């Protein structure tokens, strides 16, 4: 789908020649200001605010269709532009509730999209204000903990009596039986690894929890060959507490066989949704 780059409909221009029936939403910000942020949006669109009382939506004008492309590079450019606008608003007004990619408010019989944005802010005003209070002065950080399963498994094999015994058994058995014992050994190791992951998770969770206001456990992801992600958290952290969190994570990162990925600060994407 094409977006006409040459059509710029700023807040002050009024009626455009091309019908613009949508407002792309970047975030809601902690300000009642009506202001233009310039052509910093996706595809260079003019970004401006739609205020309601002491809050505003940060938007650009667009057709009432989702932005879509099969070209990963194009989508990547959009996603980065989306984030750049949210960052700009975050920097300018201090507290923002970011929206996910491609949230577009359209017109409706009897009301234009601008009016619909205002109506939405008015209808959700209490919820938005409450969410703003929960994230005020805070930022989101991503914490991912990896381990090297082979290294950890070796430690387990060295310390577990059951597994040590099985290893001895394999050595003394004829080939066919040894195979069976090897299966048994693998199962035992798998169980021990899971138990160990469980224990590590709970330990790290409680250590990290001390330094954050809120946290979400995300799905773990596939990592590279010799590493496995055992923990993926989104943490909401008070402005001055990120150093403490960093220190705690450094402790985990230094453990043999473990490593930590620490990203941020992000706008609080994970803490403004329904859950």
């Amino acid at each position, binding site marked *: 789908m094409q977006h006409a780059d040459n059509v710029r409909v700023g807040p002050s221009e009024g009626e455009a020649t091309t019908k613009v029936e949508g407002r792309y939403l970047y975030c809601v910000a902690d300000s009642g200001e009506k202001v233009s942020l310039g052509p910093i949006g996706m595809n260079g669109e003019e970004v401006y605010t739609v205020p309601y009382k002491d809050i505003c939506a940060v938007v650009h004008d667009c057709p009432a269709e*989702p932005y879509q492309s099969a070209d990963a590079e194009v989508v990547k450019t959009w996603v980065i532009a989306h984030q750049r606008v949210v960052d700009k608003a975050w920097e300018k007004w201090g507290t923002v509730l970011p929206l996910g990619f491609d949230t577009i408010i359209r017109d409706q019989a009897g009301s234009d999209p601008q009016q619909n944005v205002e109506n939405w802010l008015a209808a959700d005003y209490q919820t938005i204000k409450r969410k703003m209070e929960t994230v005020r002065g805070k930022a989101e950080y991503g914490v991912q903990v990896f381990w090297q399963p082979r290294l950890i498994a070796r430690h387990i094999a060295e310390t577990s009596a059951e597994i040590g015994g099985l290893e001895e058994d394999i050595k003394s058995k004829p080939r066919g039986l040894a195979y069976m014992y090897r299966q048994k050994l693998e199962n035992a190791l798998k169980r021990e690894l899971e138990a160990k992951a469980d224990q590590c998770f709970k330990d790290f969770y409680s250590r990290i929890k001390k330094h954050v206001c809120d946290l979400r456990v995300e*799905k773990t992801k596939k990592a590279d060959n010799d590493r*496995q992600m055992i923990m993926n958290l989104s943490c909401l952290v008070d402005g001055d507490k990120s150093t403490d969190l960093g220190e705690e994570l450094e402790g985990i990162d230094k453990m043999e066989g473990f490593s930590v990925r620490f*990203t941020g600060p992000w706008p609080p994407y994970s803490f403004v949704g329904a859950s």
Partner: protein
Amino acid sequence: MEPTRDSHATLVDLLDRILDKGLVIYADIIVSVAGIPLIGVNLRAALAGMETMLEYGVMQEWDERIRAWERERRGEKAVSMVSGDGDGPVDATAFAG
């Protein structure tokens, strides 16, 4: 350790947030974006193959279990907050899920 937000190294982290999260509007004035998750998946696949979940059988079940454990803990917290002091109305949706 210091957090990083280098735009190249953390693109996948940004995608995880921007494609799946953020403030949600429940209203019929929102343009339907049914095709969007597909974009997200394709893009992720193209970028890093990161969308693949844990290796099946090995840790998948554990991952589900550990997240259920966390939800339960959060659930308990939410319940105690709801039944706690009555300073103002409680929005049930804040505790859903």
